[in-house]
Each structure stands twice: as C-alpha cells, then as structure tokens.
C-alpha cells in the first residue's frame, strides 16, 4: 500500500447524484443490499433499525396543494474527508475499526475489529452507519446468493457503505495482472451507480479532472472539495465534514434543504 502511495497520485473517489434525474425508484438501495450481503428481517418498517447502507430520503417543500413538491435524496455513506481525513467517525473509533484510506479517500469499516460501541454512529450526522441489532438470518436456501466478496456481518457490530471497496480491489488486481497501475474510470464503479436505471449516479475520482464526477461538480480541492457548480451541493456543507457525495439539483428549495441556515439567512451560492 505504501509502495503504491509513492508511485501513483492518490485518488479521491466520489459520487455525484443528479436529483433532477433520480426517480426514487429504489434500485440503488436493492443493488447495494444484494451486492453487499445486507440482511433483512420480517419487519423493516422501523427505519431506525433497518440496515440500508444507501437510504433514499423523501423531501417535501412543505407547501400546500397544489404548490407541493417532492424530491428524493439517496444517501450512501458520505465518505467524509473532514479535515485531511479527520472524518467525524474515523477519529472517534476507539479501536481503529474504521479508517480513512488516503489512497482512495474511502472510509473503511473492519467488522471483525469493531466491538460495537457505536461512538461512530453518534458522530455521524448523516445516519449513514448501521448497527447489527440482530443476528443476520437468511431463510433456508437464500444464503446461496451471498457474495464471497463481502463478508456477512455478525450481530453487535457497525456497518456502512464502503463505496463497494471490494470492487476497487478486484479492479486493481485485474489491472495489476495486466501490468497497469492506474484504473480506468469505468473499471471501478459502485453497485448503485451501475444499477441506477435513471443514470442519476456518477462515480469516479474527484482528483482526476478527466473524470465525469470532476467535470460535473468542479470540486475546489484546495477547500475540502467544495463544489463550484452552482447547482451542486453537499449535505451539511457548513459542518466541515467535506463529504465526497455531491448532489445536483436545479431546484433552489432542494439545494437549501441540504443545509441548515439561521433565521433570515440567505444561502450564499459558491461560484
């Protein structure tokens, strides 16, 4: 790993979700669950104990009929960069079970090391982290579809979206076998990106100006990756978590819903 650091430039994988295109259909959620061996229970209607690495929130503009509007916001793990990798969750984990990978910018989670203190969950303002309150149980026979690339988690540990890190590893292995060090843009894509029927999700390296994600949001990497595209925003930008998930929306109320503002405060658009 260290070796690599010297050779190639570090990547910063990020995601751009076009909320104008997102239909809230739920494909990304299921693609994620099926890619990552996410378990399910008989009743999943209590969304506060339902493991969905990627959850779609439904927003409304709060206006009365017929001025009402809704918008869906898919929320994977934001893979916060914070201040130089000091993401809200990584720094609080007492057992180094979650880590910020400077080579990819991805926040990892080591299930076998996590002992379930849930401090990281308290730290995450996005509720992107999920605890295994129960033992995962698959109905008889259904464990046949489990993927060997992602180990099923045991009860009592925290799990979250990994930007399908195993796909990165597989792509990297393949590239190495072919004598390449750099990955092509389409070689590493997350399951949700790939499945999205609306093509609303774009995934790539925010450090690479040739990648679509870069072109879409024009991140200001000197300032924590702040988007320069006026239609782009990140959730809770003001907290300084510096997420690597960006949203695009042509609707002002949606962009404003991404952050908190004190009374009468006018949102400053970055240009």
């Amino acid at each position, binding site marked *: 790993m260290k070796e690599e650091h010297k050779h190639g430039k570090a990547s910063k994988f990020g995601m751009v979700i076009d909320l104008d295109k997102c239909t809230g259909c739920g494909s990304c959620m299921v693609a994620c669950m099926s890619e990552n061996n996410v378990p399910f229970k008989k009743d*999943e209607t209590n969304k506060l104990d339902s493991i969905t690495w990627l959850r779609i929130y439904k927003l409304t503009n709060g206006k009365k009929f017929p001025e009402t509007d*809704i918008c869906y916001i898919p929320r994977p793990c934001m893979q916060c960069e914070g201040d130089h990798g000091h993401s809200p969750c990584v720094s609080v984990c007492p057992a180094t079970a979650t880590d910020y990978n400077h080579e990819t910018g991805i926040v990892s989670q080591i299930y076998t090391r996590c002992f379930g203190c849930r401090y990281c969950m308290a730290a995450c303002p996005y509720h992107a982290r999920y605890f295994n309150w129960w033992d995962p149980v698959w109905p008889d026979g259904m464990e046949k579809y489990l993927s060997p690339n992602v180990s099923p988690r045991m009860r009592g540990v925290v799990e979250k979206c990994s930007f399908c890190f195993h796909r990165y590893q597989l792509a990297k292995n393949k590239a190495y076998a072919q004598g390449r060090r750099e990955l092509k843009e389409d070689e590493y894509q997350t399951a949700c990106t790939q499945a999205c029927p609306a093509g609303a999700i774009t995934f790539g390296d925010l450090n690479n100006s040739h990648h679509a994600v870069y072109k879409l949001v024009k991140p200001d990497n000197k300032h924590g990756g702040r988007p320069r595209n006026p239609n782009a925003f990140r959730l809770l930008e003001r907290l300084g978590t510096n997420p690597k998930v960006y949203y695009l929306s042509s609707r002002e109320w949606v962009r404003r819903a991404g952050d908190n503002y004190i009374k009468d405060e006018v949102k400053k658009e970055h240009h």
Partner: protein
Amino acid sequence: MKVCRRSFLSLVIGGAAGTTLSPLPWKLMDDSSIWTQMWPWTPVPEDGEVSYVNTVCSLCPGGCGLTVRKINERAIKIEGMKAYPVNDGGVCLLGLSGLQLLYGPTRVKTPLKRVGARGEGRWEKISWEDAISEVVKKLADLRAKGLSHTVGCISDSDRGTVAHLLGRFLTVYGSPNFIRTPSMQDSYEQTMHLMHGVQASAGFDVENADFILSFGSGLIDGWGSPVRMFKVNSALKGKGKLVQVEPRLSNTAAKSDKWIPIKPGTEAALALGLAHVIIKESLYNRDFVNNYSFGFNDWTDDRGRSHKGFKKLVLDEYGPDDVAEITGISDSTIIALARSFARASKPLAVCGRGQGNTPGGLSEFMAVHALNALVGNINKKGGVWAVPDPDYIRWPEVEMDINAAKGMQANRIDGAGGKTYPDSRYLLNRFPEAVNSGKEYPMKALFVVGANPVYTIPDSKAVKEAFDKIPFVVSFSSYMDETAANADLILPNHVFLERYEDVPMPAGLQKPIVGFSKPVVKPQFNTRHVGDVIIQIAKSFGGVIADAFPWDNYEACLQKTLGNKWNALNKEGFWLDSNFMAKGWKRAFSTPSGKFEFFSRAFAAKNENLFQQFRPVEPEGDEGRFPLILIPYDYMRLASGCIGDPPFAIKTVEDTVLKGDDILVEVNPKSGRGFREGDQAILSTPKGAVKVRVHLFDGIMPGLVAMPRGLGHTAYDEYLADKGINFNELIGPVEDPASGLDAAWGIRAKLTRA
C-alpha cells in the same frame, strides 16, 4: 489433611495470581474474540470461479436484459445487461431482487395436490407423472362429456411460444377461453384496432419526443418498460418537456416540468378541450388531418345517417370554459398547454394510469390518441407507432376434431368478441361475474399460468367466489401466490432464471424485439417448464391433440420455432428487427375508410350513440354516503402484478406507505381534518371496509384518498404476507360501455375514526 485458613487463602490468592500470570486467561480472551469473529451461525459465502450469464427478465412486461454474476453454481448478483436495447445496464429493484425469488422460501418445490379445503394450505406432494395424469384424466372426462369449452386458461401474456402453446392446446382441445390478464395494452390495442384498423401494440418513440403530455401515466412509476422510461426521463432533462396531468403528486408528477392536478376521471375531457384549442387556433397538422384522416369533419354513414365530426364535436362541447368546469383546470392553463403541445416539434400524448395495470376507459385512450393524430405524430419519429407482433411463431395450423370444433364455437365466458363487445379480445374483469352468475355456462376447470388473478383482479371477494365455483383449478406458479394457494393442483414452473423462454415485445417499445431468457442456474427444485408440461399433457391425450404438438419438449419447440434466430438469441440475448419502420401514412391504416379514423366507422355501425366514446366514467358509490374518492397509486418499490415484492424490495418501502403491518393511505390535510399523521382509521368503500393509517400529504388533491397497489398479500412468505391491504379488495370493475374493459379509476370512499 486439615486445611487451615491461612493455607486456604494462600492457595486461592496464589492460584489466582498464578492463573493470571499464566497464558491461559489471555489465550481464552483471544479465543473468545476469535470465536465472535466467526460465529458458526453467521454464514460464510463460499468463494469460487466467477462467471456471468446473460438472460432476459420476465418479472414484468418490461423485458430487460440481465447479466447474472455466478460463483461456481450459485447465482450471486443480478445486474443490468449493458448495451441491451431496452435497459442498457440499468435495472429496476424487482429485477435486482430476482435471486430472492429464485432461492426464496416462497418457491413451490414440487407438484402439490390439495388435501384440505381450498386455500387451507394443506398439500400433498405428488410426482409429476401423477400430477399430469390427474390433469389429463380430468380434461379427458370433460371433453368426453362435450364440456371442453368449460375449461379456461388465464395467462399474463398471449405472446411468445409458451402462450401460443397454451392457446394451441385450448384450441385443439376445444375451448375458446384463453384469457389474458388485463392492462392498458387492451385499451391501446383496441384504440389501434378502431382508429388505425390494425392489430398492433402501441409503441411510443419517447426517445425522440420533445414534449410528452402524460394523462396520469406513471412514466417513472413503472409504466411501460420501466427502466427504459427512466432513461427517457433523464434524457429529456434540458432537451424536452414532460407535463403530467394527474390528481396526485406522483413521482412522475414531481419530476415533470409541470404538474397539472386534475379531477380524477376527467382526463378524456381535458384531451378534448386541448383538441378544441388546437383546432380553433388551427394549430393542427393540416397534411395529416386533411389527407389521412376520417371523421374530422361531419360525415354520413352507410345507412345515410349524418354524424357530427370530431371538429364540430369538440368545438361545440369542449370549450376551455366547459373543460375547466369538468376538470378543475383553469381555462388559461388549458389554452397554454394546448398551444405548447401543438407547437412542440415532436409532441407526444400518452395515457394509461399509473403502471397501466388496468385498462381504463376506451374513450380516454381514443381522445388522447386523437391529440396525437391532430399534431400528426402517428407512425412518425417521436410519435406513436402501431407495432405488429413479431411474427416468428409459424406453426402448422392445428387439425381440429369434432369435439374441438364444437367447443370452439361456444361463446367466450368473458363475452369478448361477442355481440356486445365485438372489438375486445379478452375481458377478464367480466370473468368473475360470468362464473358467479352462471349465465353463460359453468366453468369446470381453469389453468392459471404466469398470473395471479386472485390477487390482481378487482373485487377480490367476487374473484375468490368465482374460483370457489370452479371445481378444478390448476396453477403453474413457481411461487405460493394467492392463486396457487387457492388451487387444487400446483404444477410449479421453473422461475425465469432456470428456464428457456422467448420474451417478445417489452411494453411500449416502438420496435419489434424478442428477448431471450435462458437458464442461469440448474432448476433448484423438482419443477418443470410449463411448456414441457403442456406438451406432455397434449401427448398424453394422443390423437389430434398430440399431433398438434410435434415437438419432443419445449426446448426443441423453441429451437425449431426460432430457427435461424436461435443462435443469435443465444449469443446476443435478443433479436431486434432493426429495419423495422412504422408504415407511412399512406399505407398505415386498414380502417374501412383506409385512413386514420377520429370516429371509427366500424364502431359507429354498431353503436347508435357514437358520442358515448367520450363519456366520462363515474366512480361506483353514493356521494352522500361516501364523500371521498379512493384512487390507487403505483410506485416502483411495490410490485403490484403477479409477482409480489421480494424481501429486498419490501425493505425499501417507506414508513409513510407501510408501518408494521399497517398500510398508510394518503390524504390531503384539508380532507383529513381530525386525523393526525399516522392515526388509525377505517376506510370504507361500497366493496368493503378496512383498517388503515392516515398519511397526511399535501401533494394529493383534497377530496381524494390514495392507496398504494402491491400490498395486502395473503400468500407468499412472512416478509410480504399480511402487510397492508390489497387495493382490489376495495374496488370493483366498472365496465366500459364501449369496450367492456374495466374502466374504473377509483371508487367512492369514506374515512372514519378507528
């Protein structure tokens, strides 16, 4: 030996100290943590060789291409097939959950014969041979008694080899009662039949349209081929406009450029109002209207009776003021909409509510289609195309014996193609009533293939009653669905990931395409391909029936049928007639006039009052007793067809739709006064009363209650069963006077405190 206290204490303390200093506790601590890291009850998926198999999904009429990732013999992940013409890599959540259907607990694992009472759930496992001979015995018996016409078959499709095998069997056996499950396809086919004079599906060149006007179609809520529609919607951003006319802020409405709320059921009036403005302001396509259409101006029929033309009708009766009154949309909005529609370079009007699971009123379809005709986008780029069925099933004509011929002469039980509804092909909505009243003849046996009518057909109670009246029901379902649970015999089919099958014509596509399902994994259980079973049943009869099925098995039949396409299909996964072009206007119409008919001459010949085509459909129920109107809504996360939501899909359903086992109905805070969010309530309609919870939602028109389709299953597994309410329990069919199809779009309702 006497143990004094001192030596005892020393022993204890020394022992404790010794143990602590020994490796034992540390080893135990380490071992126990390692144990927690690999608890034997947490599965460890086996690794192995990775491979990919392409196939085509048949869980809905969308027909998407899938690529399935496998580890050794296990299918582990479904993904969208890249470059597949329908979905190009995208895939919906139902398709993505397909492996849960394949490996799930809801599979019927072997042929089952009912032991207890109907629907009691007590079954006996029987062999395939016994199961088939039981069917053959029953059918032979009926045939011998001259009751072959009392055998019916309900199927989700009438296309492709499996449906053709079923139809062929019924024909040669001697029954006219092959019934396809209803959908908007029925209404569109009939629209094509009456206005174009052709037997064709409606294909929509949505990719090339720049102004889509949708009359309540859930374009991104599962209408047509869902993934394709998502892609179209995304591509439209910035390039074209989507206007959604609908009483409820559906996802489609929310994503559209303009949402126009409309009083439900008045869509046809709006279409005619738009036509009024377009005609009045001379915004219509002169070339098409003047040269290729009939019935635009006043006309006289063969018997010399004069009829008002379309022009006069809409000019007289559908002025913006009148339409504003009917629809609740302001006249200025109507005028502006008509202008922007007509002035767009490729305008396209579509209908079929929600996912198009119900046919709807024919008048509405014809009115909307008339709009397309006015702007001349029939069989044109960006318009509506009449797409004939792919013509690849060319089997020799069946030879019918006397029994068959006699049976085939009987009237269809559902009345389709009969005196009242000569232009309709299938009317499953009339089936329960026909069976229950016994007016025509009693049904003696029923096959159900790829369909779940006990769940999907309106007025569940009547449907159930009809099923109870039929003494022999055979389900070919792969899953223990509601129909299978109420059958006498289940002959489980392979699921789509285990079988070969041609999947022709994804819904709404403008080009003929045949998808190809092929086995991704070996059959997991003792199931059999329904095609094989039909061939085996036929062969057991011998004689002309057996002769009609000259193939050894289904695979041989499919290979023979597809001929030189077989290899291409196996390799590419689909066959697309890329040379297909919709017929030019000169040759497109096979109506009596040879032109596009605003008013069908054929139709007029049989119906005194032509204008009933455009009469709005009233919802069932008394306004005084039921002040609200209940409408259904569809959305992607709930599969409302014959397949129920697998666990992954149901997991994505929001808690404003389902909470615990309670369904939430949407009500505008204005109509839901006295109810707080999540309150329990009784929702009653003339068909029944159920317990629901209230979700206050500003995006629904006051006066309405909206309920999602796809919940309220009683069968399937514990992840789906008994969650919420089946909308079909609360609504009954409303027969469209013109087509006999189910035109119901809602029903009067009442919401009271629980």
